[in-house]
């Protein structure tokens, strides 16, 4: 993994927040909710890889 991941997650968060505001202002609350949900799913998919890499690394280093 790279340090880019942190910035990517933060950028997704900011973009989703802006989209959310826009959609709420234009009266589409349901689409705003779906947008934030989709962003969260994307971020979680990115997180799972990194956490899995971390745990397998620790397991192999310490021989667990």
């Amino acid at each position: 993994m790279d340090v880019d991941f942190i910035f990517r997650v933060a950028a997704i968060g900011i973009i989703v927040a802006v989209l959310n505001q826009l959609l709420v202002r234009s009266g589409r609350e349901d689409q705003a909710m779906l947008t934030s949900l989709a962003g969260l799913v994307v971020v979680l998919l990115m997180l799972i890889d990194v956490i899995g890499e971390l745990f397998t690394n620790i397991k192999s280093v310490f021989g667990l």
Partner: protein
Amino acid sequence: MELTNVLGICIIAALLCIVLSEHKPEYSAAVVLLAGAYIFLLLIKNIIPAATGLLSVIDAAGVENDYMKTALKALGICYITQFAADVCRDFGQTALASKAELAGKCAIFLLSLPLVTNIVEIAVNMIGGI
């Protein structure tokens, strides 16, 4: 690993969290988790040569290697448990954090149980020998 790299990542991640927590707190949690995992991965690369060096020194001293390996395993369990517990505590879930710590304690106790039984056996033998 460089110390300045880790420190810079910490500061930048903290700043990003402040920006994100106003509108989308769940993303600030993700940033914290990612930054923690990344720093951990950087540190692990440092720990590998340290651990192998320590094991070779123990080998040279002629002490049994199994004990040192058990200690290293306990150290690894401590690291991942602490990581998970800290993340849970950061997200405000102290109950889950204490459960994670309890799981780690159980794992370490199970790991060190053979050593404890060894010590008890030696003690019983000594008492019986008198």
